[in-house]
């Protein structure tokens, strides 16, 4: 039921962010050596790595659930989501994001910085892009001499992604 709402939310965000509102503060973090950015407004907290309870029969990138002060929240592994090699040794923390009412934890290698990126410094993402599909990016931000891949986190986590995966598995079964 809720799943039908989430895409519409993310569409709205995507539509507005595509135009002009990409400028703002981003939390940056590392995944397999690349630096990514996440709109700071969507981040509710950063917590240390902890034991994750695995959920059987879910897509590989769903790492499971944790207890966040009495709430059970799902954890998504961004490396796996983006089809990057697994390297558990590198992962250090979980970024908890809140999209509409739903909280989700993202396993990342390392949190790096909070940077302000001006619209002028953001370019639309090219079709090819370091293993992440370009439609999952808001754009590519430049801060100083470095480049950060700005994630469209709504789209990354959107139910559509999960539905398509579970549809695939349902067909396989």
């Amino acid at each position, binding site marked *: 039921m809720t*799943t039908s709402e989430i895409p519409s939310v993310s569409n709205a965000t995507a539509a507005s962010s595509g135009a002009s509102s990409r400028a703002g503060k981003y939390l940056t973090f590392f995944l397999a050596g690349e630096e990514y950015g996440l709109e700071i407004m969507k981040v509710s907290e950063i917590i240390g790595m902890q034991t994750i*309870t695995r959920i059987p029969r879910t897509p590989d990138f769903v790492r499971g659930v944790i207890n966040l002060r009495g*709430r059970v929240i799902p954890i998504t592994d961004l490396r796996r989501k983006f089809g990057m090699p697994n390297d558990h040794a590198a992962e250090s923390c979980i970024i908890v994001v809140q999209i509409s009412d739903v909280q*989700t934890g993202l396993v990342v290698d390392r949190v790096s910085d909070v940077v302000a990126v001006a619209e002028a410094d953001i370019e639309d993402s090219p079709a090819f892009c370091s293993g992440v599909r370009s439609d999952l990016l808001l754009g590519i931000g430049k801060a100083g001499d470095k480049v950060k891949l700005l994630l469209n986190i709504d789209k990354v986590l959107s*139910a559509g992604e*999960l539905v398509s995966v579970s549809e695939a598995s349902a067909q396989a079964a």
Partner: protein
Amino acid sequence: MSLPAIDDIAILLLQLEIDDVDDLAKVRNALVSLLKEKSATGAAASHLIRAVELLGNVISTKSENATDDLVAVGVCLELAMNASSDEASDQPLFAASLDSLPEDSDAALLREFVGEGLEYIVASESALLSLENNPDDREALDTVFRAFHTVKGTSAFLGLSRAAAFAHEAESLLSRVRDKEFSYSGSCAELALRSIDMLRELLQAVEVALDESGVLAVPAQYDELTRALKSFDPSVDVFPIQSLALVSPEPKAAHSDSSIDATIRVRTDRLDRLLNIVGELVIAQTIIAGDSCFVHGQQPELTRKVAHAGKIVRELQELSMSMRTVPLRATFQKLARVVRDTSSKTGKSVNFVTDGDEVEIDRNLVDLFADPLIHMVRNAVDHGIESPIDRETQGKPRTGQIHLTAYHSSGNVVVELTDDGRGLSREKIVLRAIANGTIASDANMSDSDVFDLAFAPGFSTAEVVTDISGRGVGLDVVRRNLETVGGRIDINSTAGKGSKFTVRLPFTLAVTDGMLVRVGAERYVLPLAQIQMSFRPDASMLSTIAGRGEVVLQRGTIMPVVRLHRLFNVPDAVDNPLEGLLVIVNDGDRRSALLVDELLGQQQVVAKRLGNSLGQLDGFSGGAILGDGRVALILDVRETIALNTPPLRLAS
């Protein structure tokens, strides 16, 4: 008015202890000023002077036994009150015919007083009842005394002389009890309870006067009861007002209306948050109590304190859980109406009996549960019960019976709907299902399997089902609705004799009694209500049946073995049933044996959703936070079994 003033002081005194020096001083000052104003005269004054002396001793801690002195002060005040009331009683306390509200009365104030007074009355009623069981219950006596006194004081202030006068008499009766002149029992208790009723009627009369008439009605037998109170003599064993017993105090409806004031509405999301936080508190407490510094007994003092805090936390948890439950009564009453309407529409004669409507259930479940239940009851009348003529030809009584029963069973609320109608016919369901293509044959199908077909979506169009069995209209919807709240429904039926629908609902959505089991490195919670038993099988019990997979034979029952570790892809778990444990779980009548490594213990868990973004999860109904702060998944038995059994019955 001197009288209420002394009374007020007496009441205040009741609430004071010998070390409340400041307040005692205030009492003394009040008495002194009473004497100065000469409001008390004669005998009353001399009692008051003695009281002031005694109080002075208590305050300056000169008295050798302060507690006794304080009691003596109370006695003096009492005597003073009686003395002054004796003087006062020479004059009429109120004008003989005060049948309208006082002229300058403030409606808002009166209303407030009525509401407050009725609350006092409700409180005193229960206090009186407990007093009857335990005549020495001083606290109960004080409660009633205070109630009468407050009503008296306020009604006098508001010009409601009749209520004031009556409350005064009732208060006198109780003060005689308090002075141990006689004990609270028999006719005295009768009289006290009747007085409460009378006061209630007096207050309600005020309400009526405010709302409609403006005329203050005098309740029936006001005068008789007043006289009975005045002249009460405990040695006369017979209750002097036999005729009063005939007066049924019939203000029940109004009574319950006013007692609504004693409840407040709380938004359920706040309640849910409270429950969540209390759940967290319980876990935090468990973690503290499990800390290694307590385990080795190094800190006996701290251990004791932590255990004490733990008790309080658990009590808090129980209390907060109970805040979400309500009785099924309202739901059942709604159903009685449904039965009446449906039966008159369909020309059936039905006797509807309910049992256990006091059973409580989670508030959130009530609404979700009501619709399926209405559906089932309507079905029972419409399709289950035959017409009176049909029943007669079958040798049944013309009137059909529908029985609705609720009770608690192992952490569940069970609601059974039984009728003596035409029942379900296995044969016809099977024929229909084969014609439908739902099944190829009913070989190997138990009755419960067959009746289960009636729940299949699309199986039942009204026409077909009425034709076949008289049941099944929308049963798939009923079942789906119940399952969303963690409920189960099962049918038991004999053709021609009737049907029994059994609905099992969790007592609350918030807590599940669970059994924690280990599979490899993973832990899962099994709902305790669905566990039959667990055992370690020996080789002779296990076999493999073609087409049905691995089974275990236990006490004559053949059950499929569900290897949880394979289903959930858990590495390093016990693979050989002979080395692990089989836990028999039941889903309706169907049983399965789940293979686990070991049982870790029984535990109450707070069930939480796993988060919407994960969508529908196969085999799990939610997550629970365990004592170590980690999450364990709660197994959904029905789904797990369904995962294990590929849809064999479906004709391809």
